[in-house]
């Protein structure tokens, strides 16, 4: 179908190019393949380039750069990838507006890696009603993987719930008499971690959690919560908090002289955040991970990390190299490449979704060895395993086997 906008663009184009011998702009490839032409596939995305979560904006920038690289190498099946990445300021209503624009005006084939739990939940009903794939939503909220009600929506991160369960299992295995204190953010993220922890501990061990305290993101500090948790006499402390509050909790628990085994969630475990908390105060923190840390010396000869470094130097800047969010984006872009490769020439929305739900052990160069991506029509959680690591004051050191939640 030729939309009004395309007609207008066409008209203006031909006006400008009148007499220049420009051929008519190629129209849609086929009625059943929106956003796809013989030479291009158009995909859309909303991203937090501004607003409170704009530290994550790097995800969109890395992906744009990645597709630029792919296009320079000739694209995929002869088609160039055109990523239209729009700012939603981490605001759900704005995300809905932008996604409608992407689908109805820009006519994208599908949505890829829109960022943030609230935004993804907000755009999900619209995309499912219009049968537009919402692929690899950039969030770890477990509610994004719900094939029964929302077959067109799939997350990608190991869910917060999976991760919480991994901590629960590890505590049970190493410290069966633990008394656990939990600090959690009072939203989907924090509550997912808490219920994951309970999954991992199992029904009959719930008594091990002696105190759970929440905080609101609007609070300036969580020092008071940490004091309360220490007062409970717990000897294990799970910090299910976003970066700023996580750093505060790490510091405060150290300053209080609280000798607990401290677990900190993956979203907050990046080196820059621990540096803000104080490296000596972060000693012996435990977290779960699935991606390689480019600053860790054990990967200095790793092919995947070398490629990543070269990519940053050519298409981004060297300052992006250690950013865990950037590494993540690079990895997920590879997963999308696999989906498109599997699609071949049938880039209809149905087939894109079908291929996205039949990934078999796809390796990703920047994920830990052994961590692969697999999906099926009734399993919408692409990554389900993680490995624990401990902070030695300078680096994260992996230990133990891969654990699934």
């Amino acid at each position, binding site marked *: 179908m030729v939309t009004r906008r395309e007609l207008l663009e066409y008209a203006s184009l031909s006006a400008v190019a009148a007499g220049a011998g420009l051929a008519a702009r190629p129209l849609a490839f086929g009625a059943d393949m929106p956003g796809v032409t013989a030479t291009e596939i158009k995909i859309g995305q909303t991203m937090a380039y*501004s607003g*409170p*979560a*704009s*530290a994550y904006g790097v995800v969109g920038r890395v992906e744009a750069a990645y597709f630029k690289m792919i296009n320079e190498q000739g694209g995929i099946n002869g088609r160039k990838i055109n990523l239209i990445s729009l700012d939603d300021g981490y605001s759900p209503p704005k995300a809905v507006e932008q996604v409608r624009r992407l689908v109805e005006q820009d006519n994208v084939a599908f949505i890829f890696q829109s960022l943030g739990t609230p935004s993804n939940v907000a755009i999900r009903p619209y995309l499912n009603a219009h049968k537009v794939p919402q692929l690899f939503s950039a969030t770890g909220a477990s509610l994004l993987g719900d094939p029964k009600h929302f077959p067109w929506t799939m997350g990608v991160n190991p869910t917060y719930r999976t991760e919480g369960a991994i901590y629960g299992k590890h505590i049970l295995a190493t410290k069966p008499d633990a008394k656990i204190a939990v600090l959690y953010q*009072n939203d989907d993220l924090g509550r997912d971690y808490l219920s994951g922890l309970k999954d991992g501990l199992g029904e009959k061990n719930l008594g091990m959690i002696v105190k759970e*305290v*929440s*905080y*609101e993101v*609007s*609070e*300036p*500090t969580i*020092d*008071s*919560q940490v*004091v*309360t948790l*220490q*007062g409970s006499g717990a000897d294990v402390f799970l910090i299910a908090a976003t*970066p*700023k509050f996580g*750093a*505060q909790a790490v510091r405060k628990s150290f*300053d*209080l002289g609280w000798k607990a085994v401290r677990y900190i969630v993956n979203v907050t475990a990046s080196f*820059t*955040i621990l*540096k*803000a*908390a*104080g490296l000596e105060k972060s000693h012996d923190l435990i977290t779960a991970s699935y991606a390689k840390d480019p600053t860790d010396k054990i990967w200095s000869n790793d092919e995947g990390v070398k490629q990543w470094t070269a990519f940053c130097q050519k298409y981004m800047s060297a300052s992006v190299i250690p950013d865990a969010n950037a590494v993540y984006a690079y990895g997920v872009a590879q997963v999308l490449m696999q989906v498109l490769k599997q699609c071949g020439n049938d880039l209809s929305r149905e087939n894109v979704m079908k291929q996205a739900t039949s990934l078999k052990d796809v390796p990703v160069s920047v994920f830990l060895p052994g961590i692969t991506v697999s999906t099926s029509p009734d399993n919408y959680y692409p990554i389900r395993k993680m490995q624990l690591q401990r902070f030695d004051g300078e680096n994260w050191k992996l230990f133990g086997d891969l654990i699934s939640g």
Partner: protein
Amino acid sequence: MSTFAHQFFSGLAMGGVYAILALALVMIYQATHLVNFAQGEMAMFATYMAWNMMDSGLPYWAAFGLTVVLSFAAGVIIERVIVRPFAKAPVLSMVIVFIGMVFIFNSVVGWIYGYEIKDFRSPFPEKAWFGNTLMSSHESGVIVVTFLVLALVYGFFRFTPLGLAMRAAAQNPASSRLVGIKVGWMLALGWGLAAAIGSIAGMMAAPVVYLDPNMMSSLLLYGFAAAVLGGIDNPWGAVAGGFIVGVMQNLVGAYLVGTQIQLSVALVIIIGVLVMKPSGLFGRVIVTRV
């Protein structure tokens, strides 16, 4: 017992930060009878300047002093350039200008420095003072600084001719002009002083809450509550209000209702107080003769 004491003292330290912010609000209010909603963002911007200076190798107190001076200058310039043209405009226009400034400062800082949290050094030693196990040295330091700022503000208004002139300019501009006070400059001076005090609040808060472009949004809310609770025209009251809000926030959260609605309860208590005493706990009751 020790948990209770910890809660109390950590509340006191946060209260110190609220108190300094409240002092900045009182300052502007004294000079202009307006509440500056952009006070927090201005302080945040100043704190980034201080961070920048320290990052490039300046020692703490040099950066501190320079930031206070620069903030003062920036405050004066803002008053002259942005606020002055609205001097005769309705209060609502002024409010919109303040809100606009909030967004401008926030986005500009995010654009320049990014949104990742940054560690901000405390000037006080790592070890707690006098073997005090309940408060870190920074927490004690914040309280000392609060009282120093209060003493300076109080002394300035009470004992210096300039302070007297400022008070006069705010209370009765027409008569002040007649006795030779440059009322316009007094307003600019009030803005400068408020910006300078705000920058101190920012630099005291940043080691606790970390430096990021949104660090001040929640702090300002509490600072505002403190100022209103204590009486927005009274420096002593503002400081007392700051400490009360800080301690109450912790104790209400830990012992009364849990953390989920601690903010609401704290604000409900404040509203309760204001219903009884509309000018704040320590505010002057102003009778306007019509």
